[in-house]
């Protein structure tokens, strides 16, 4: 909150200091991404722990110190600089780690789960429609990729169809989801996830429990899994996946961002926070919940399709409740409605347990305690959603 109250004072800054502000923002983002890239890559337990400590310290500084709060407020005030720096840093990290298969695989995984989290953001953070079956819709995307991937349909189109398929399947749930609220709607999605998984496993049409092989993603005839070099450089075949994943996330980010900063976004917030007053002011609750639910599932489906193509297989276990909870944890830990938070939380949830292989069978319990600690002491997530502020848009227009 405090960072927002600083924002108006920043607006009065003159042109030259705006340039300086941008530099500060760019450097901050660059350092954060560099640290993140290093965290993805390093396997030394000491370095992992030191990096984590550094991140915690950095976050604490950003909140406790006035200077830190100022920098944080600057980042909020210059989203364009943040996004541009982030894009450059992602490319730089990808270039630097171009041969590191595992790091790139994790990078792509983080990007795709964050994309799915963007879908959940539309549903849960904006419209307030709970979705406890994220992994199920994700798996639907993968299955569509498996079925259509070899059919000769261009793979870009397959991604789109996967999104549509997930949305259409979501239609089945629309009526009960719209008629209910809160925990009742949550159960509808939980039941759907369990049902879908059980069905895929029992029924052999889509490969039964063994699942299906998914062909590698290919773009304009270039199969990603055959990429071994770009120009003079040897690269991992996961490099194009990592880039495609990040690109997909960027698209999802743009969609969610633009939606948030539009009257449709205001409508969604109104519907979520108070159905009664929203309907008195002429908003159709059903329309907005349905829009968010279907769009969200479509995003999750697209991300799932690319994930399936990267992993080269899909099976019913991909749709399990535990994975849906992982997606949900990403959303809540990151901060409902903040997509950068979702990226940070994806790293925390997907990468850190992998980095902690040294603690082996104790991983799960330590991980669970970590999540509990975050929920308990930071109930609004690592990076809470920043209050939407239309003032800058209004001025430009």
């Amino acid at each position: 909150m405090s960072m927002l109250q600083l924002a108006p004072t920043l607006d009065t800054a003159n042109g030259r200091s705006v340039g300086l502000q941008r530099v500060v923002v760019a450097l901050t983002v660059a350092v954060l991404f560099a640290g993140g890239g290093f965290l993805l890559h390093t396997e030394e337990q000491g370095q992992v722990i030191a990096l984590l400590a550094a991140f915690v310290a950095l976050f604490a500084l950003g909140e406790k110190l006035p200077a830190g709060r100022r920098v944080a407020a600057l980042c909020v005030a210059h989203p364009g600089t943040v996004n541009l720096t982030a894009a450059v840093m992602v490319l730089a990290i990808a270039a630097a780690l171009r041969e590191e298969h595992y790091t790139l695989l994790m990078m792509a995984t983080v990007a795709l789960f964050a994309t799915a989290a963007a879908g959940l953001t539309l549903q849960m953070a904006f419209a307030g429609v709970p979705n406890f079956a994220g992994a199920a819709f994700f798996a639907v995307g993968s299955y569509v990729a498996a079925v259509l991937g070899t059919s000769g349909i261009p793979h870009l189109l397959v991604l789109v169809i996967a999104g549509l398929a997930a949305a259409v399947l979501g239609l089945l749930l629309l009526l009960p989801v719209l008629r209910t609220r809160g925990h009742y709607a949550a159960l509808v999605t939980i039941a759907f996830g369990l049902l879908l998984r059980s069905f895929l496993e029992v029924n052999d049409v889509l490969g039964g429990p063994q699942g299906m092989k998914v062909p590698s993603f290919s773009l304009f005839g270039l199969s990603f899994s055959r990429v071994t070099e770009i120009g003079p450089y040897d690269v991992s075949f996961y490099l194009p996946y990592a880039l495609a994943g990040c690109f997909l996330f960027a698209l999802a980010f743009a969609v969610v961002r633009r939606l948030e900063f539009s009257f449709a976004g205001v409508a969604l917030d109104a519907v979520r926070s108070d159905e009664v007053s929203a309907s008195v002011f002429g908003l159709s609750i059903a329309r907005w919940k349905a829009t968010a639910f279907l769009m969200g599932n479509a995003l999750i489906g697209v991300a799932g399709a690319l994930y399936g193509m990267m992993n080269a297989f899909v099976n019913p276990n991909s749709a399990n409740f535990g994975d849906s909870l992982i997606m949900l944890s990403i959303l809540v830990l990151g901060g409902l409605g903040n997509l950068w938070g979702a990226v940070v939380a994806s790293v925390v949830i997907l990468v850190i347990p992998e980095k902690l292989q040294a603690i082996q069978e104790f991983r799960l319990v330590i991980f669970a305690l970590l999540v509990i600690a975050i929920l308990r002491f930071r109930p609004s997530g690592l990076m809470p959603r920043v209050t939407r502020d239309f003032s800058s848009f209004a001025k430009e227009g």
Partner: protein
Amino acid sequence: MDPGLLAQYVFNGLMLGTIYAIVAVGFSLFFGVLDVIKFSHGDVVTVGAFSAFGAAGLVAAAVTLPGPLALALGLLAALGAGAASGMLIGRVLVLPLKNAPAVNVLLATLMAGTVLREVIRLGVPNGGNPKPFPALLPEGVLAAGSFSVGIDSVIILVAGIAVVVATHLVITRTRLGLAIRAVAQDGEVAQLAGISFSRTVLGTFALGSMLAGLAGLMLGLYYREINFNMGVLLGIIGFACAVVGGLGSLIGPILGGFLFAGIQTGVTVVLPFTSAYKDVVAFAVIILLIGLFPTGLIAEKSSERV
């Protein structure tokens, strides 16, 4: 169909339904007082089962106990451990988070469940493997034609139904019950009337979790096998029963429990060779029912003021 077998199916369904109902009632109680879903509830069942197992097993290893004494010991352990873990989770996680979004509480308690589960798996020797639960009830079989049922099963079923009735009495006849109902109706007003909010909430958590611990003991006695994972699916099913029946009510979850058990048993009877689809059918029915009765079969009172 052979009436004996039919009776057998009905008995199986009743047994399953009673266990579901006991778990579901806990969900409903918590929701009633605090509007939260405590998803670690299924794992509290496991805690109860393992505590009874541990208490009965450890003592039996030291001295030979007569059956009833070992049972009483197991019962105490299950109730105590259930209540303790429930109150701990309530105190440390749920109460401090009561103003956070519902999904946070859900996630936090799910993780608490994971912790309980993992602690059992790692803490109990060879905890990853299923454990045999000692037979603490009198053995013997009652048979009539092709219907046969263990005396212990009958005892468990009767005890289970008695527990459900007792819970109803606690809620309607005791001071704790009065406090629970008052807080469920309106926490602020209850506080004005001199009812301690947090004590009532913790009391509810203790009561609901004792039920879960008891369910754990019953599961152990009935199936004679317990494992660290047994609470996961049970938790989801209990939640489903509570929601379908109507969160916050007492009769609703019981109804939901028997309904769910009925569907599962029914599918196996009617379509024995596609019984793998029984979960698909059961969850499809759940979705359908929620679509038809958006606030549960026994609708909770809408208290929204405009």
